[in-house]
């Protein structure tokens, strides 16, 4: 079973590279059972949206 520490690293990496099928599956199972990491995933999505807003506004 994947640890939360590993899951957060993969959730971050997912923003920079395509995860392997195995990584994606392991992460999916972990997120089904872990509220903390699910929230972390949503937090990361918001962080990217905030950065996109910064870029659009400054341009």
């Amino acid at each position, binding site marked *: 079973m994947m640890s939360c520490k590993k899951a957060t690293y993969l959730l971050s990496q997912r923003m*920079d590279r395509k995860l392997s099928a195995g990584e994606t599956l392991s992460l999916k199972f972990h997120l089904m059972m872990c509220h*903390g990491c699910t929230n972390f995933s949503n937090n990361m999505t918001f962080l990217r949206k905030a950065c996109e*807003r*910064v*870029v659009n506004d400054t341009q």
Partner: protein
Amino acid sequence: MPPTISAPFPNDADSPLRNEAMLAQLRRDLLRFAMLQLRNRELAEDVVQEALAAAIGAGDRFEQRASVKTWVFSILKNKIIDVFRDRWNKNRFDVVEACDESDFDVLFMGNERWQRSEMPASWGDPEQSLENVEFWQIFDICMNNLPEATARVFTMREFLGLEAHEICKELGISTSNCWVILHRARMSLRLCLQQRWFEEGETK
């Protein structure tokens, strides 16, 4: 402050580079973008000046571009990347230190699961925060709290839009180091926003 570039054909209203009012607006947008990346007014003025000079110097070639503004911004981004690369090489950042994740060990238990008190919380509908001026002040504080090397890599990824492999190439670091630095930046920003904005909001 460097001298202002005057548009070569001020009466032509079709191009931002040939119309004084449009050029002034473009320059303001470029400067704001450069300031965000470089956090240094003088340096930002310099790269904007260079980008505009390069664009105007290209003469009629830019007429064939779909969007002059987008094109000038791409010139500016390349100038900013040049500055980052020079700074990175001059400052000799300690990549090992930048990749040190031990700061975040306290968030996890021995089995690498979240400490109960540190478990990420739901931020509800966080997009409402994007319309709040105070949120952006906190966001700025959190960005400024990042160590310089970490902030630089994160900025290149999220604000300049470079892919991880491009950042590695520009800064001469390994892909795995780049991923770790980006992860560290996101962990720091998430924690900072959680503590300074989302949790604060609950107690207001």
